[in-house]
């Protein structure tokens, strides 16, 4: 090592060089550190500029933070994050609609997919609606769960918002369409189940014939209607049709396949040359029942009371769909050359459909048919105008489907009475309580908050709050608690600016349970307050619901 004193005695040039050398020796450690820091800083700067990189950097940290916060203070977290996440998801779903269609229906072929697109639109709409009601806390949880599990967030949210449940199970002989067995999650059995078995088979037959004309022979796997899907698991001699709602998980697909294999093993010999003799199939229902019970969840059941009505309607619509597919494959009009002639003929045809509409609809119809409009866009017929109510909206579309034979009909009728939907939404809301408690839980509070703007829209109508209870304990006790529950909701409404004199409170106690009280889950459903918007005439609330 050089002696510093000696170095200083040299020329200035020499001395500077030496100084540098000295610095290098003395500060080498720090210099390296500084260089490293400089590098780090630049890196950070870049990361800050590059959004993606920043996110990947922050993700693990925020996730941990969120997790911790969720444990210590879930309520507040929900409140903070909920409002931001809701719209984001909504936007994603809106833009991902087509992706969802493709992802969910890879198997059913282009033609049917088109028709299903309309149903998807409704699905997205109902997701939106449910998001409105759903609690931000719950959504947040879904998001985080998704992160942890590595599922895409949309998927997780979909299944969170639309809880999956199985409503009906059919086992149907493939060749003849004869119903081999049927079980239902609903209490009442359907008188038309055999007919449904037949119609499902007809639809399958049709799709198969039609699709194999398209080139690749395909089996129909899903029929979509409203909130329901009919999922078909095809076997060699028979197929299983499952009426489901919500978004099924992998387990469902695996289990249903297993069930099919198991039934095939057991009954193939009998079904190969099936004579229609039902004697040897007596154990079938209990096997289906087992499957059904495995998947049963209580969450959604009470919401789907008029299931059979819905499924019955669905078959009419499916019938229209069949006609639709037919026309896709065997278009009724001659090819391109005669296009002008066609056009006027089509216009005439549309007019005559509108003329004929009233003949096919009940005289009691409230919708003014004169305001309806039909617009053709390719093979899609748009039905526009105002319908008096939801029921007539569907009816009219059905008749138009029948008369026009269009493959896809987009029902764009709006309800001329938007108040009605507001009322329906309010009447559907239920506020749930814990055992023997009349405290409004945070989640339930949110539901009430989301109703406030709706109440303001129908400011001339009164609201009845009906308190209910489960069946445990004495009549008097239950009457009291149901009264307290309704009062608590009333108090919250008043705090949120609803006029006192618009609110009526009724206590039912355990007298009119909404569902039976057999299980704890059902009892939980009965511990609630129900809203009823009253008509503003004197004979309030007599219309059947």
């Amino acid at each position, binding site marked *: 090592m050089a002696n510093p004193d000696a170095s200083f005695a040299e020329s200035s040039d020499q001395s500077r060089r030496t100084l540098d050398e000295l610095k290098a020796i003395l500060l080498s450690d720090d210099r390296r550190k500084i260089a490293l820091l400089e590098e780090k800083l630049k890196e950070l700067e870049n990361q800050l500029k590059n959004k993606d990189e920043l996110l990947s950097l922050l993700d693990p940290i925020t996730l941990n933070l969120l997790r911790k916060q969720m444990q210590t203070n879930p309520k507040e977290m929900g409140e903070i994050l909920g409002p931001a996440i809701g719209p984001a998801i909504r936007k994603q779903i809106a833009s991902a609609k087509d992706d969802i269609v493709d992802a969910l229906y890879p198997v059913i072929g282009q033609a049917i997919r088109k028709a299903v697109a309309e149903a998807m639109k409704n699905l997205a709409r109902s997701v939106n609606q449910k998001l409105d009601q759903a609690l931000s806390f719950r959504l947040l949880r879904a998001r985080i769960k998704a992160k942890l599990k590595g599922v895409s967030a949309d998927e997780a949210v979909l299944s969170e918002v639309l809880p999956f449940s199985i409503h009906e199970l059919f086992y149907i002989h493939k060749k003849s*369409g004869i119903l081999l067995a049927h079980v239902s999650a609903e209490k009442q059995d359907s008188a038309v189940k055999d007919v449904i078995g037949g119609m499902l088979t007809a639809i399958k037959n*049709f799709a198969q014939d039609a699709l194999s004309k398209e080139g690749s022979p395909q089996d129909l796997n899903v029929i979509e209607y409203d909130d329901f899907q009919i999922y078909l698991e095809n076997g060699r001699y028979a197929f299983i049709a499952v009426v489901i709602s919500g978004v099924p998980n992998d387990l469902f697909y695996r289990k249903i396949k297993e069930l099919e294999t198991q039934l095939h093993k057991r009954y193939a010999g009998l079904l190969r040359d099936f*004579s229609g003799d039902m004697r040897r199939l007596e154990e079938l229902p209990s096997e289906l029942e087992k499957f059904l019970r495995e998947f049963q969840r209580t969450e959604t059941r009470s919401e789907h009371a008029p299931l059979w009505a819905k499924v019955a309607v669905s078959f009419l619509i499916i019938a229209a769909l069949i006609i639709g597919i037919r026309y896709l494959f065997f278009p009724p009009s001659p090819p391109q050359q005669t296009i002008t002639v066609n056009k006027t003929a089509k216009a005439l045809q549309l007019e005559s459909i509108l003329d004929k509409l009233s003949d096919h609809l009940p005289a009691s119809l409230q919708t003014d048919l004169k305001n309806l409009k039909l617009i053709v866009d390719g093979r899609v017929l748009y039905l526009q105008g105002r319908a008096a109510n939801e029921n007539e909206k569907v009816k009219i579309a059905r008749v138009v489907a029948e008369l026009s034979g269009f493959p896809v009909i987009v029902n764009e009728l709006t309800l001329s009475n938007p108040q009605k939907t507001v009322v329906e939404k309010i009447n559907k809301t239920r506020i749930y309580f814990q055992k023997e408690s009349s405290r409004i839980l945070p989640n339930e509070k949110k539901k009430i908050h989301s109703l406030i703007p709706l109440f303001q829209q129908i400011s001339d109508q009164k609201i009845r709050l009906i308190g209910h209870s489960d069946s445990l304990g004495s009549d008097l006790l239950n009457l009291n608690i149901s009264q307290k529950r309704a009062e608590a909701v009333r108090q919250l409404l008043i705090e949120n600016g609803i006029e006192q004199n618009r609110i009526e409170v009724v206590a039912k106690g355990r007298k009119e349970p909404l569902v039976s009280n057999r299980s704890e889950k059902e009892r939980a459903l009965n511990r609630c307050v129900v809203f009823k918007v009253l008509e503003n005439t004197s004979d309030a609330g007599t219309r059947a619901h």
Partner: protein
Amino acid sequence: MQEPVLIKKKVCLLGSFNVGKTSLVRRFVYNVFDDLYLSTLGVKVSQKILPAIEKPDGTVVQYQLMIWDIEGQEKFTDYLPGYFTGSAGAVLAVDLTRKNSWTIIPDLMQRFKDINPEAAFVLAANKLDLLPEDHAHLKEIADFAKEINVSHWLTSAKTGHNVEHFFHDLASSF
């Protein structure tokens, strides 16, 4: 009598358009009739359980008919074969007043037999109420039925004449 054995059978209603297939089913299943003509689109499935009958071997059976009312086509080749599979029999329906509704029947029957070799058939010669008693078609339809070797019934969905009978006749030959 012993507890009957439930046997479900699929039967198809075949024939030219407008001959009254849907009307026959509606009369048979719901006992109603309508003058309005709403052409069937695709298939309409209905069901009816027949009274229990005793088979020659002594067993008592009860048939539940799943009736596939298929839209009438102009040519037999226009039918989707998928609709025919797994049937125990078919009702061949014609309009007594409109002879050109008869011509499709032999080919249609053959096509159905190709898919269901064991199938039973009956011929329902419908709209009897529209013909005077001595009309030439009544004799001609009998000859026609003989030709194709199928038992025939003169029916009217409007009055209900013979409607029950030909369905029972069909079921008895399963």
